[in-house]
């Protein structure tokens, strides 16, 4: 049975990857599951310089979901390249997708240029959709022109294929996806989190220090499946689907919708074995439906 998929010339042995920001720099989960089983490890967003992130509380639970406002805390590209990336050498069979964040186009460019020289970075995922930082982030991702502009700049400097990570907080996701494609993106990934808020009614203030946060988890899956379905039908580049995947059945919704690969985020917090179960569950489903190639899933 062939589970392997090709994203922009890079072959993943299976279509399952971690969602950025939920899997640290790849090794934190290693005691609890085998990162080497994944098609790709997607690392936490990394920026040109270390970022402090937001004040706490940074997370809140919501019905079948959660809000986070981590604010892209990260040790900066130097530490990431010198320490975290080499750590991933041991999963030789698993591709590495580095998630990149920035406040300005120059920030992104710096990080992309730096990662272009790193053999262990197979693909770059550009986060233009984080709702939790004041500058940059989502600001780039909510307007087709700026999606196009930033994509174009990065595509020009990047020696690695780039995946533009799209925000669901838009009127028309296909417009953003087309802008990314036109700008030269090799793939798009979606969805990042939906902007949400929870109010602590006893303390009479927003529960998150940052006031708003990003909603993730099974709660948002129907929105994610819809956007992936639409995007697959709007662009020719591969679409990586995510948002609320907690089981093989959930992942299959995205693959049937036409996603080339899927990422699992919030569900890892509930059960670190989720991604392993997703991989084996996809296999079993394909077996049961007499499919010998994962590409046959697509409707």
């Amino acid at each position, binding site marked *: 049975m062939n589970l392997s998929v090709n994203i922009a010339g890079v072959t993943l042995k299976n279509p399952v990857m971690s969602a950025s*920001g*939920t*899997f*640290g720099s790849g090794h*934190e*989960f*290693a*005691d*609890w*599951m*085998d990162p*080497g089983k994944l098609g790709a490890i997607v690392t*936490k967003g990394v920026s040109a310089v*270390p*970022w*402090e*992130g937001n004040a*706490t*509380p*940074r*997370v*809140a*639970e919501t*019905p*079948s*979901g*959660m809000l*986070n406002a*981590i604010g892209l*805390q990260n*040790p*900066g590209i130097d*530490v990431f390249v010198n320490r975290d990336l080499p750590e991933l050498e041991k999963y030789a069979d698993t591709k590495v997708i580095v998630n990149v964040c920035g406040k300005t186009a120059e920030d992104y460019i710096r990080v992309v240029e730096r990662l272009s020289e790193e053999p262990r970075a197979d693909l770059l995922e550009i986060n233009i959709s984080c709702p939790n930082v004041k500058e940059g982030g989502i600001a780039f991702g909510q307007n087709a022109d700026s999606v196009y502009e930033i994509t174009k700049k990065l595509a020009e400097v990047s020696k690695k294929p780039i995946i533009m990570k799209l925000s669901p907080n838009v009127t028309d996701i296909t417009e953003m996806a087309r802008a990314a494609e036109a700008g030269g993106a090799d793939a798009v990934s979606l969805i990042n989190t939906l902007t949400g808020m929870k109010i602590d009614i006893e303390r009479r203030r927003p529960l998150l220090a940052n006031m708003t946060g990003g909603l993730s*988890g*099974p709660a948002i899956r129907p929105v994610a499946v819809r956007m992936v379905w639409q995007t697959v039908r709007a662009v020719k580049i591969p679409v990586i689907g995510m948002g609320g995947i907690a089981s093989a059945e959930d992942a299959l919704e995205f693959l049937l919708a036409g996603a080339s690969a899927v990422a699992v985020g*919030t*569900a*890892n*917090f*509930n*059960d*670190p*074995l989720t991604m392993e179960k997703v991989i084996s569950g996809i296999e079993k489903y394909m077996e049961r439906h007499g499919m010998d190639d994962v590409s046959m899933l697509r409707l």
Partner: protein
Amino acid sequence: MENKRKQEKAWVINQTEMIPGIMDLLIKAPKTAAAAAPGQFLSLYCGDKSRLLPRPISICDTDKFTGAIRLVYRVGGAGTEEFSKLGPGETIRIQGPLGNGFPLDPGFSSVMIVGGGIGIPPLLYLAKSLHIKKTLVMGYPSVTYLDEELAQHGNLYIATEDGSRGTKGNVINAIEENGLTADAIMACGPIPMLRALKQYGEAHNMRVIISMEERMACGIGACLACVCKSTEKDAYLNINKKRVCLEGPVFDAREVEL
């Protein structure tokens, strides 16, 4: 890969309400129990699928021989409400032990173990496991719990906010009223208490080791939800923050900003 750690399906041996709103839960989870140390915690998962995030609960005691773990927790929100309904023979999904516990060979010879409110449970396991001179100081709003058991492991001083038992006031009042001293303080409880103890320790030249709390999502260092501010740049995170779930929950008070 070998030697991987796994979530454990724990069996409820027994559960009782110790005092109103505070549950005493005994579970059987041999693998987790075997590895547990005082100050570490477990992630407890809800059965209800609408609640995804783990509830971090400190290990109150373990019996390595029977594989039992004791958890004492306050029923606050929906998750702990769900746990409080568990009866003998039912199961609960747990992950742990997590985090770094208290130093058991701390390099000093006497310690004041200070607890406040729902910070008290892990200190029982600590008091049991720490073989140096111990004085125990526990602060409660009013009704006491775990006090009889704690008293078996050292002199116990109690403070209650309403004065119904021991010193009227907080743990600092109890320490001062009783003129207690020690080389160091180990503590768990609300932030204001920890802050007061940190100051007290600085003033009296005592080392202060504290257990922190923060909202968590992964419990294993991957999501960066649970950070606290650290006085120095953390070697791993490369900024002035530390993860309560991984570098903590136990910290030298000098390491963190309260």
